[in-house]
């Protein structure tokens, strides 16, 4: 189905509730509805299986306009339908979409924490991102909130989850825990070795990036957004620059686009190998961990040779890329890829044949296709359950229109399938990089982009190693963005852990968490921390 017919279909489905419809971009449909109709509209879209809920953006139109807007973004292929509901700035409320899309619970909690919108009937209204001692009634994403003003601290109880009864046995994991070297907090209720309930709290590394971007100019933001994630830094920078380029009406030169895909491919290799090691370690197979991380150094060295950095490569600028790939560097990349290809083949052999390792992965955390769709999973986690979800293929952007990649899926849906999908994806990636290096187009490295970006809104979606990264960018015509909403794939994939943990063994929990390749850094972006020391 092409984009146009998709949008027409969506328009038809939503007609009963539509107050106003618009086509801001060829692939986008904006429908203005009343806040109370959100549930009915989503149910209608889901009934017709039109796309999936990709993100919810909160938008403060400012004290002058006196209104907030909640934007529900649904994606199908390249088509994006946005339901826009207008709410009063204070005391606005929306129905929860949890029964239709469990993942919406995370989006809604973010919305209510950051904008003060009440979500009705939500299964969990505890804080997800803001700290426990954040004052009640202070909503950091409202325009009048000044990040420079220090907020008073609130009294808190020592328990993260307030409603606990003393009869159950809880095993806490994180945020400071050798089991999880990342700042998330999980609480598993166990009965013997079996988990009966799982809860989660995020936000330990919120850095207030979404708020901070509103105070910096478009160029400065590039460097800030690249630091949303330490692993897929290039993905975030690419999503941002592509959105801004679209708003500015320019297109990066062909060679720049090709180089962007080379870097994205190398980043995918390093991310997946990192994940392979971490998962092996969580399963208690440290030898695989050590070997895969040793081999990962190959791709890290390549990235360093190209950009001078191992993680924040800073390859992008608005309108192009910073550096070229010279023939000698291309040769180094090819040699490195050859070695990696051989090693990855070996690891694929291990994860599919090592009996003891398979005992820990085969049939564990199984998610079938219907469940995966319902849970709103993204990226390799979804593809391992047979859901064909890959922005590079569904909605090819930038370089992927010229150098298409194929999609790797598996039907099994268990942890083993996630290993297989991720490793097989690397072969595709390696071949794609080779193709590009063989056919690097000749062109400039960048084009000029004005300092002020014309007013407008755009949505930029990029396939990160973990799945779809979603950027909503709004410009008001000045040199600073009006609003940038970032939804990272890890946030959607948490549903896989929370739905699969109950009933599985405590020993499988670390592997379940690792299996969706969580990235805490990009989950947690959006809290404003006041610097206490004034220098």
């Amino acid at each position: 189905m092409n984009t146009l017919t998709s949008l027409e279909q969506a328009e038809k489905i939503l007609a009963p509730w539509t107050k106003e419809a618009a086509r801001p971009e060829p692939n986008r449909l904006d429908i203005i509805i009343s806040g109370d109709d959100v549930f009915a509209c989503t149910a209608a879209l889901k009934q017709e299986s039109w796309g999936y809920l990709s993100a919810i953006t909160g938008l403060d139109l400012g004290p002058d306009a006196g209104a907030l807007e909640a934007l529900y973004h649904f994606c199908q292929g390249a088509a994006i339908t946005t339901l826009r509901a207008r709410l009063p700035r204070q005391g606005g409320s929306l129905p929860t979409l949890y029964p239709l899309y469990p993942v919406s619970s995370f989006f809604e909690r973010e919305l209510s924490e950051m904008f003060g919108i009440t979500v009705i009937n939500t299964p969990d209204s505890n804080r997800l991102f803001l700290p426990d001692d954040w004052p009640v009634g202070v909503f950091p994403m409202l325009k009048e909130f000044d990040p420079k003003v220090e907020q008073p601290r609130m009294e808190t109880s020592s328990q993260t989850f307030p409603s606990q009864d003393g009869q159950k046995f809880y095993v806490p994991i994180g945020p400071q825990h050798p089991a999880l070297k990342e700042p998330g907090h999980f609480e598993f209720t166990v009965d013997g070795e079996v988990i009966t309930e799982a809860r989660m709290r995020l936000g330990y590394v919120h850095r207030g990036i979404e708020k901070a971007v509103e105070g910096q100019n478009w160029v400065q933001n590039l460097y800030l957004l690249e630091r949303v994630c330490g692993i897929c830094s290039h993905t975030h920078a690419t999503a941002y620059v592509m959105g801004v380029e679209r708003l500015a009406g320019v297109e990066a030169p062909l060679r720049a686009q090709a180089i962007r895909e080379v870097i994205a491919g190398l980043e995918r290799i390093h991310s997946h190998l990192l994940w392979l090691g971490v998962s092996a370690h969580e399963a208690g197979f440290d030898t695989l961990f050590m070997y895969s991380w040793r081999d990962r150094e190959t791709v890290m060295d390549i990235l360093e040779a190209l950009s001078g950095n191992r993680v924040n490569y800073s390859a992008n600028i608005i309108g192009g890329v910073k550096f070229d790939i010279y023939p000698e560097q291309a040769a180094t990349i090819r040699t490195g890829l050859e070695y990696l290809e051989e090693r990855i083949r070996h690891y694929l052999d291990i994860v599919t044949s090592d009996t003891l390792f398979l005992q820990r992965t085969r049939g564990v955390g199984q998610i079938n296709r219907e469940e995966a769709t319902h849970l709103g999973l993204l990226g390799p986690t979804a593809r391992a359950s047979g859901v064909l979800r890959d922005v590079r293929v569904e909605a090819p952007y930038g370089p992927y229109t010229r150098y298409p990649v194929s999609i790797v899926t598996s039907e099994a849906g268990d942890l083993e399938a996630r290993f297989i999908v991720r490793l097989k994806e690397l072969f595709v990636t390696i071949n794609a990089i080779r193709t590009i290096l063989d056919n690097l187009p000749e062109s400039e490295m960048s084009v000029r982009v004005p300092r002020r970006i014309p007013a407008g809104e755009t949505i930029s979606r990029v396939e990160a190693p973990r799945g779809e990264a979603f950027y909503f960018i709004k410009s008001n015509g000045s040199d600073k963005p009006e609003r940038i909403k970032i939804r990272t794939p890890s946030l959607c994939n948490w549903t896989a852990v929370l739905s699969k943990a109950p009933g599985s063994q405590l020993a499988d929990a670390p592997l379940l968490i690792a299996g969706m390749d969580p990235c805490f850094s990009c989950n947690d972006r959006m809290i404003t921390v006041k610097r206490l020391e004034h220098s």
Partner: protein
Amino acid sequence: MFSALQPLAQILLFPAGLFLVINGIVIEWIDRKLVARLQNRIGPRWFQPLADLVKLLAKEEILPAAANPWLFIGLPMIALAGCLTAALYVPIMGLQPAYSFSGDLIVTLYLLSLLTLSKGIAGWNTTNRFSLVGATRGFTQLFAYEAPFLLALLGPAIAARSWQIDTIIQRNAGSWIILTQPIGFLVALIGLMGKLELPPFDAPEAETEIVAGAMTEYSGRGLALFNIAKSVEFVVGLTLVAALYLGGVNNPLEYLLKTLFILVILISLQTLLTRLRIDQTVGLWWRFGTILVLIQWMVLIVWKASAL
């Protein structure tokens, strides 16, 4: 005068005591270094285990408020004492055991179990959540491997018609039981890994789930003593398996070669295998370990009876 000092020296210097601790430290270093090399890491320098030990002994011991202080301090000592005492009945360095009596094989095996028992009670005593889960897993694992391990070590005893370690070694002198009872050897070897909670049987201290298991709340001296106890148990276990299955250990050279041989096998297995879940560990022992060893026992008993 000398005769009064001799038992004291046996307990404090050789074969138990200082010598065993040093031996244990060396074994720990070989274990860590070889695993590291096999995993493509550099591994610790030769004095690292000793440095770790000295550091831990010098550090503050934090006593959890909820724990019984007597148990908390006493359990590591009991564990170490058990392991050191066990060493008196086995031919350390290929020399005659310091003490010997009929049935000392059983006593030695139970003394070796004191470490796991102490760890389990210690985990329960500290009331930490991870400790509790670790202690439960430790005990579960104990019930899984203990019976097959015991049965496997009794195999050579039956062949020698004695339950006295010294006698078994003398009567079996020159014959490598590993050749006639290969299953027993395998079970004993894997049982030793279970006893020492080495990978893949490290579920009781699986760091990715339950931090350090029963040891989570231990620090300073208590942790140091538990660590020494584990190293000492490693030595005693290696000696026992080498003496019973690899044709005895009659001189220091033979002792070193044979224990090192077993150590290298254990290290390779540690590197190659993924951690088992506790239910998988129990399943493995009762479904395969115990049954295999019982089959071997039947063969052994029938063969012995027909030889009479």
